[in-house]
């Protein structure tokens, strides 16, 4: 058997531009136009099998394939990071099948596909944010029947969701939902923002960029047009709050970004670091330093061991 090893830069000439055939792209594009016209409503679409397993962002990849053009610059993040397996493989997929430019810099991207984070840097009007969504139906764990959840959306019957949040309060004293925190879109549809930390919910409100959501296994597409009201569900006496940290980023010292906790050893040492790798790298380039940055002299931080 003849073996040909193709350089990704050579593209994949046996496939149509951006992998999907034109008829599939048209079908997805029609669903996208309906999705932006009905913000927060889940439009069914004929999701295709993609050359990656469900759970790896097949919905986001199909949306990106329908939207991306030869002049776009693509950034892909997984939990905020550009350099994780999922992000790297999707970025290479489009570099190969669409020969588009790719970047790790938020500011340089025209399309950003994301798994479960919104970049810390404010997005612009000329950018599109594509979310990978596992379970698009916010009511699914409360009501498993699709026929019923569809009726609940039709009738704007969202009492059950408030009961769920109330049960959080009665059990824990506060709303314990920390990710996939339900939002109300333009005072009409309750929407799952995908499993982003609730820290990112406020960024969705009135965002300048267009936000598109693709769920491959569940075959749903939904969208938030720019400058759309997105409100996290809450109660008057238990208002919505985002996570806060007492620590700063160990690398760049940021106190305003979403921090991941990294366990360093079995002695209880740990550090916090920005989940958004581009944000952190940009701050480090600008000279910001956190206590565990390798530039910092040992022992200056209270957890000096972590600096090694």
């Amino acid at each position, binding site marked *: 058997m003849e073996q040909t090893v193709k350089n990704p830069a050579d593209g994949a000439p046996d496939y149509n531009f951006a992998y999907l055939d034109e008829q599939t792209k048209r079908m997805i594009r029609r669903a996208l136009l309906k999705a*932006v016209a009905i*913000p927060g409503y889940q439009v069914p679409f004929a999701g295709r099998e993609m050359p990656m397993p469900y759970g790896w962002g097949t919905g986001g990849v199909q949306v990106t394939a329908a939207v991306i053009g030869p002049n776009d610059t693509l950034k892909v993040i997984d939990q905020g990071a550009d350099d994780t397996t999922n992000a790297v493989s999707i970025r290479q997929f489009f570099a190969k099948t669409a020969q588009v430019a790719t970047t790790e810099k938020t500011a340089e991207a025209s399309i950003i596909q994301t798994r479960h984070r919104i970049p810390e840097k404010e997005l612009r009007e000329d950018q599109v944010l594509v979310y990978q969504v596992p379970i698009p139906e916010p009511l699914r764990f409360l009501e498993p029947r699709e026929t019923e959840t569809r*009726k609940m959306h039709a009738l704007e019957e969202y009492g059950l969701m408030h009961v769920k949040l109330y049960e959080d309060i009665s059990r824990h004293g506060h709303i314990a939902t920390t990710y996939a925190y339900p939002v109300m879109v333009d005072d009409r549809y309750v929407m799952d923002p995908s499993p982003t930390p609730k820290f990112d919910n406020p960024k969705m409100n009135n965002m300048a960029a267009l936000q598109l959501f693709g769920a491959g296994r569940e075959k749903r597409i939904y969208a938030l*047009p720019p400058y759309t009201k997105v409100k996290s569900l809450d109660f008057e006496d238990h208002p919505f709050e985002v996570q806060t940290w007492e620590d700063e980023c160990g690398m760049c010292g940021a106190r305003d970004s979403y921090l991941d906790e990294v366990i360093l050893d079995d002695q209880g040492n740990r550090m916090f670091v920005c989940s958004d790798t581009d944000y952190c790298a940009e701050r480090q380039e600008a000279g910001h330093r956190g206590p565990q940055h390798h530039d910092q002299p040992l022992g200056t931080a209270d957890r000096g061991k972590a600096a090694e």
Partner: protein
Amino acid sequence: MTPQPQSAPAQTSEMLPGFDHAAFDSNAVFRALLDAMSRPGRIYDLPVSVSAPDGLNKAATATLLAMADMDTTIWLSPSCATKAAGNHLKFHCGCPISTDVKQADFAIARISDDLSFVTDLAVGNAEYPDQSATLILMVDEISDRPSMTLKGPGIKDTHSLSIKGLPASFHAWRAENHHLFPCGVDVIFASETQIAALSRTTRIEVN
């Protein structure tokens, strides 16, 4: 070589070309439509050059080439339903063309037409509001003169939009249409070289 409609045999020599490059041109037109629908009232230039058959203008033709296929039923108003337009769409899009406006996924009309058909367009239903028609209205001129002030999702403060020759009956229908939300019809205005859209969410103040 090409599928010939029984009733109106077309000569291949009379056929106008579709997109120069199917993937790139349809993507560029779709991106303009996506931008237009997600920012209602903002005006976008048609990003490609296409030939329009008799009965259609360029932006409407490009919109249909990018969006229509065998899964979408097209309805053409009497003034658009020329033999050339029908053959062009059947050949390049392979889309069914219906004379029943209720069946339409995309309805195409001129602004000077009798627009009373709009009340028959599909608006979807409460459970599937996406099963609605899109109206493509061919117009002479789109501008941002403030004859209409638009508000709603996709609009930061307000957008101004002016469509030459838009009748008062259109605004009455649009106001009704807006109240049907989440059901309703979305509108794409297509001049020869530009497009703008009104989503069903858009609130219009006529100045």
